[in-house]
C-alpha cells in the first residue's frame, strides 16, 4: 500500500470516528443531563413514528443549522466573521493528526499504523494547535461588532492564556519521565509495569499532573464550570452574532475539543491504546501466566481499549459539566494562577528530585 493511500485511509478513519463521536456527544449531552436531573430529554424528533431514543435530533439539529439564515452584522468584518468558526474547528480537528488511535495492526500482508503522523515534536504540535484555537474565538468576538461578543472573546482569550500555562507546565514532569515528545513513544513507555504488576500509566507516575491537566483541559475546552467565554446566562459569548452552520461549526468545535481533551488524557495519563498486561503476543498476567493471542486480535483489543478510554473521558467531562456550578471570573483566575500554576511547578521540582536521587 502506498504511503498516500495509507494516510488517506487512516485520516478517513480518524475523522469519521471523531466527527461521529462529536455528533453523538450533542445527543449524549442532552440525554445524560436529563438522566442526571431525573428528566427524559430530547425524544420528539421522529421518522415515520420511530423516535430511536432521540437520536434523530442530531439530524434535525444539523438540518436546522443548515437551513437558517447566515447573518453577518452590518458593521462586522465579513472576512474574519466567516473565518473564525473555520479556525476553531480546524485547530480542534488538526490535533488528531498525531494522536495514535491504535497500534500498528497487521492486516493481511501489510500493517496499518493507526496514526496519521508521528514525530518527535508531536506533543508540542498538540499544544501549539491547542493555543491557536484562541484566534477563532478572538476573531469571532472582534469581527462581530457587538460588545457582548467582544466581552466573551476577551474573557476567552484571558482564560485560555492563563490555563495554557498550567496545561503546558503540568506536562513537563511527564516528559521528564518519558524522555520523549512523541506520543507513540509515550504510549510504548506506558506499556511497562511498575513493581511487576502495576501498569506504568501516567496517572500512576504523575497523579497530580493528571489532575491539573484534566482541570486545565476542561478550562481550555471552555465548558462548565469554566464557560466564562460563553456565559450562557449573561453575555452569550463570542458567538452572539453567529447563526446557521457557522454557529454549528463553533458548536461542533466545542464537542471536538471535548474529544481532544479526552484523547490527550487517555494518551498521556491512561496508557493510550495499552490494555493492562496485554503485550504484542498476548496477555502476560502478573502471576507468570501467559495467554497467547493472534496479532490481529491484540490490535483490535488495543483499538477498542483506546475507544473505551476516549468514551469514558468524554462521559466524565459531560458529568463534570452537568454537576459543577460555574466559577466566578476572579475565582477562575485565582484557580489558574495561584493554584494550578504553583502546583504544577512544585510537581516538576518533586519529579526532578525523585528522578535524580532514584
Amino acid at each position, binding site marked *: 500500500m502506498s504511503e498516500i493511500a495509507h494516510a488517506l485511509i487512516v485520516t478517513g478513519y480518524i475523522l469519521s470516528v471523531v466527527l461521529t463521536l462529536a455528533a453523538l456527544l450533542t445527543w449524549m449531552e442532552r440525554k*445524560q443531563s*436529563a*438522566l*442526571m*436531573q*431525573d*428528566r*427524559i430529554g430530547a425524544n420528539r424528533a421522529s421518522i415515520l413514528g420511530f423516535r430511536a431514543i432521540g437520536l434523530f435530533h442530531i439530524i434535525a439539529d444539523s438540518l436546522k443549522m443548515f437551513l437558517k439564515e447566515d447573518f453577518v452584522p452590518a458593521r462586522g468584518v465579513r472576512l474574519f466573521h466567516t473565518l473564525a468558526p473555520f479556525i476553531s474547528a480546524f485547530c480542534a480537528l488538526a490535533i488528531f493528526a498525531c494522536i495514535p488511535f491504535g497500534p500498528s495492526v497487521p492486516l493481511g500482508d501489510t500493517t496499518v499504523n493507526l496514526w496519521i503522523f508521528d514525530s518527535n515534536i508531536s506533543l508540542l504540535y498538540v499544544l501549539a494547535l491547542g493555543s491557536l484555537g484562541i484566534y477563532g474565538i478572538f476573531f469571532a468576538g472582534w469581527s462581530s461588532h457587538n460588545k457582548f461578543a467582544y466581552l466573551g472573546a476577551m474573557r476567552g482569550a484571558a482564560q485560555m492564556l492563563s490555563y495554557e500555562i498550567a496545561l503546558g507546565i503540568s506536562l513537563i514532569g511527564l516528559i521528564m519521565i518519558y524522555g520523549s515528545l512523541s506520543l507513540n513513544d509515550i504510549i510504548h513507555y506506558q506499556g511497562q509495569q511498575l513493581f511487576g504488576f502495576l501498569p506504568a500509566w501516567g496517572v500512576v507516575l504523575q497523579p497530580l499532573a493528571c*489532575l491539573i491537566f484534566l482541570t486545565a483541559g476542561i478550562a481550555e475546552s471552555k465548558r462548565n464550570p469554566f464557560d466564562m467565554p460563553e456565559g450562557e446566562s449573561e453575555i452569550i459569548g463570542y458567538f452572539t452574532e453567529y447563526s446557521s452552520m457557522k454557529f454549528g461549526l463553533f458548536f461542533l468545535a466545542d464537542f471536538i475539543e471535548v474529544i481532544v481533551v479526552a484523547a490527550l488524557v487517555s494518551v498521556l495519563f491512561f496508557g493510550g491504546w495499552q490494555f493492562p498486561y496485554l503485550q504484542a503476543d498476548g496477555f502476560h498476567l502478573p502471576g507468570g501466566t501467559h495467554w497467547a493471542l493472534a496479532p490481529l486480535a491484540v490490535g483490535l483489543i488495543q483499538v477498542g481499549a483506546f475507544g473505551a478510554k476516549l468514551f469514558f473521558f468524554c462521559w466524565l467531562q459531560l*458529568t*463534570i459539566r*452537568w*454537576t*459543577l456550578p460555574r466559577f466566578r471570573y476572579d475565582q477562575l483566575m485565582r484557580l489558574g494562577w495561584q493554584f494550578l500554576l504553583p502546583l504544577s511547578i512544585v510537581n516538576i521540582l518533586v519529579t526532578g528530585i525523585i528522578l535524580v536521587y532514584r
Partner: protein
Amino acid sequence: MTKPKLTVLERLYLPEILRGLLITTRHHFANLTVHILHRIGLAKGKRGAVTFQYPEDPRPVARRLRARHRLMKRPDGSTRCVACMMCETICPAQCIYIVADEHPDPRIEKRPKSFDIDLGICVMCGYCVEACPEDAIRMDTYITETSSFTREGMLLTIDDLMNHHNEDSFPRHTSS
C-alpha cells in the same frame, strides 16, 4: 450575614467535587437502569424521571382543580343563572360581563340575555363560584387547555358556557 466556615477538606475542593459527582452519577445510572428495564417491560411501577410526556400522557389533576367555567341548567334546559350580578361584582379580574333580561316565568326574577367570560383576563380564582346564590356557575370542566390566536377568541359566550361537550369530565387516570 456570616459566612459558614469551611473545613480544610471542603476548601480543597476535590473531596466535595467527588461527592457531587457521585450524586449525579448515581442518579444517571439509576435512571438509566429504570429506563432500560421499562424498554424490556419490567419495573413498570418505578419512574425513571419526573417528566410527564404532556400531550400523550397528561399530568394527573386534583379533583378540586378550578378549570374552565360552565353554566348549570334547570331540568327544562334553561340556565339557572338569575343575572343577580354577584359574580360580575366579586370578580377581581372583572372578566364577567352580564346583560340582564326579564324572565317570562313570573316566579323567576331575571335571566341573562348575554353572559360572557373573557378567559384571557380570568385569574381562575373561583370567587364567582363561591358568590353564586343559585349554584349556576361551576369550574369543574377540567378543561385547562385554552388558547386562541386572537383576543376575541378567548371570550366565552353563554352558548359556550352552557353547551360544552363534556359535562362530567373528570379525567379517569387522575388521582382523586
